[in-house]
């Protein structure tokens, strides 16, 4: 391939072609860990979406007579100290965890891209934005979220905001690095020479070429968000105490860990399966979309 041809392929960056191009999809479909991750994530998503249909009873319905029932055919995953059905609670918990994770991912996508693009493209803004992100990243991640959530008061929305604040600087940094790299490429100069404005160049030429590392990063942010949300809920800083959140369920199970270990074990396994699925998905996406930061060989 001549250098001219190379430039040709790069001068028409199309989101669809870079992303849904048959070769990449085929590679993803052949990637073992991506496929295992995809199935695990689909499994959790189906349970979350169908929670109202799948749950045998209301997740908050107490039945004092059937307290502390171990997993059995009557109670698939057992019951808790108030006789609530753990299968229903785990299924509804999946909704809550995925919703919070998605919220964090969306905020990361919007603000991470915005701040990363501004810092990477408009060099005058870079200094101040990066110092701010340095400062935010100087806090141990979950600790910052804990601090924000403790101040704002516990709620699912608080969990989303506090975790977004923790991960946005990290996403912005990754996007900034890609924007800086792409800005140096010739087709950007060509677009500039053709008289395109900054916003047009950013939107049409630079950002579509920065999507691969962003998608990879967001898949890991999703995984971290679910893990950290469980920490916040466990400490009483996430979802409301009445909500069937996995972190809250583990925290409730802790008091009965000798008599009813399943109360703790089951929600923890739900978290582990979801996070494992997302991590496998992220590994696959990274291998195929963003080979520069390849970890798995």
């Amino acid at each position, binding site marked *: 391939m001549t250098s001219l041809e190379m430039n040709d392929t790069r001068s028409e960056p199309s989101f669809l072609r870079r992303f849904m191009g048959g070769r990449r999809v085929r590679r993803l479909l052949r990637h073992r860990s991506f496929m295992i991750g995809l199935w695990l994530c689909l499994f959790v998503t189906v349970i979350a979406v169908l929670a109202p249909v799948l749950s045998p009873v209301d997740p908050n319905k107490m039945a004092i007579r059937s307290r502390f029932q171990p997993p059995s055919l009557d109670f698939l995953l057992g019951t808790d100290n108030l006789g609530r059905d753990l299968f229903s609670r785990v299924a509804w918990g999946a909704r809550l965890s995925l919703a919070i994770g998605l919220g964090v991912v969306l905020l990361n996508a919007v603000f991470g891209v915005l701040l990363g693009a501004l810092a990477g493209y408009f060099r005058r803004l870079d200094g101040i934005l990066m*110092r*701010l992100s*340095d*400062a*935010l990243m*100087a*806090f*141990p*991640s*979950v*600790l*910052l979220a*804990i*601090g*924000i959530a*403790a*101040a*704002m*008061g516990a709620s699912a929305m608080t969990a989303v905001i506090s975790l977004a604040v923790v991960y946005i600087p990290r996403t912005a940094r990754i996007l900034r690095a890609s924007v800086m790299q792409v800005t140096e490429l010739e087709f950007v100069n060509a677009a500039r020479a053709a008289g395109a404005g900054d916003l047009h160049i950013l939107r049409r030429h630079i950002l579509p070429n920065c999507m691969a590392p962003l998608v990879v990063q967001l898949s890991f942010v999703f*995984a971290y968000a679910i*893990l950290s949300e*469980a*920490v916040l809920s*466990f*400490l*009483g*800083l996430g979802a409301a105490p009445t909500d069937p959140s996995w972190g809250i369920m*583990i925290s409730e*199970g*802790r008091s009965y*860990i*000798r008599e009813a*270990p399943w109360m*703790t*074990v089951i*929600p*923890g396994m739900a*978290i*582990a399966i979801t*996070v*494992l699925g997302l*991590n*496998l998905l992220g*590994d696959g996406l990274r291998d195929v979309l963003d080979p520069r930061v*390849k*970890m*798995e*060989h």
Partner: protein
Amino acid sequence: MLAYTLRRIAQAVPILLLVSLISFGIMQLVPGDPAAVLAGPNATPDELVHLRQTLGLDKSLLTQIMIFYGNLFQGDLGYSIILGEPVLKVVIERSPISISLAIYSLILTIVFGLFIGVVAAMKHNRWIDQVAMAFALIGVSVPNFWLGLVMIVLFSVHLGWLPTGGYVPFFEDPIGWFLAATMPALSLALMQIGLLARLTRSTMLEVLGQDYIRTARAKGASEPRVIIKHAMSNVLIPVVTVLGMILSVLLSGSVIVETIFAVPGIGALLGNAILGRDYPMIQGGLIFVAAVLLILNIAVDVLYAWLDPRVRVQ
């Protein structure tokens, strides 16, 4: 080397100022009147006025920031409401406990992370590699506090091998310390072991593909010698760069792990402060931990520059 160290310290000063401003800002997020939240529902109006004065809440925001920085420069991180003692004093008192736990987890992380990563790379694509990477992946996917609870059930309740928690000072009873600190250190370390094993494996595979390794092998060096003498020193460099991140996650995890295992360190201190809405303690604790982490990161950078002289010039 000295110039590099000084430059890194100078860069950290504005970040530290921003870090403290963010910690101050977080406390402004408390909805409504923080004094009313702190004093509880039974406080009289007089008590509220007094508390607002003590906390400086009756002054303008700018004045509050000035007072905050003024105190900070004198080493005053505020006054814990629950404990009735200066935050800095309490935090420093509890530090050795958290530090000893962090060092223990760091040793576990480095030993197991490197070992698993190197073995996986040496047995690339064989069953040992697959098992090691599956373990590493599970390590990064399991919530550490849950793992702690499961270990308590297994090793304390059922097998009775280890105490369920608590803390024994190292210099009073090293064996007691070891028994009490093993489960908390392991639950803190598992995620980092997974991360480090994955990083070590990929770096080792990259290094093993390089020409100088082929040369060493061609010269007849034995495989352990190739790995330990030739490959390892280049594998360690990227590992040092993630040390800062590892320490950050260890400090983060300590809040919940110390709470579960009743270890009276800084993590548990912050955990109790959150439950008791002790905002000055949370704010001061955040600043202290972030400052410690900044200093550790400088130390890691200096270590990195010492190992890899190219960094100093950049």
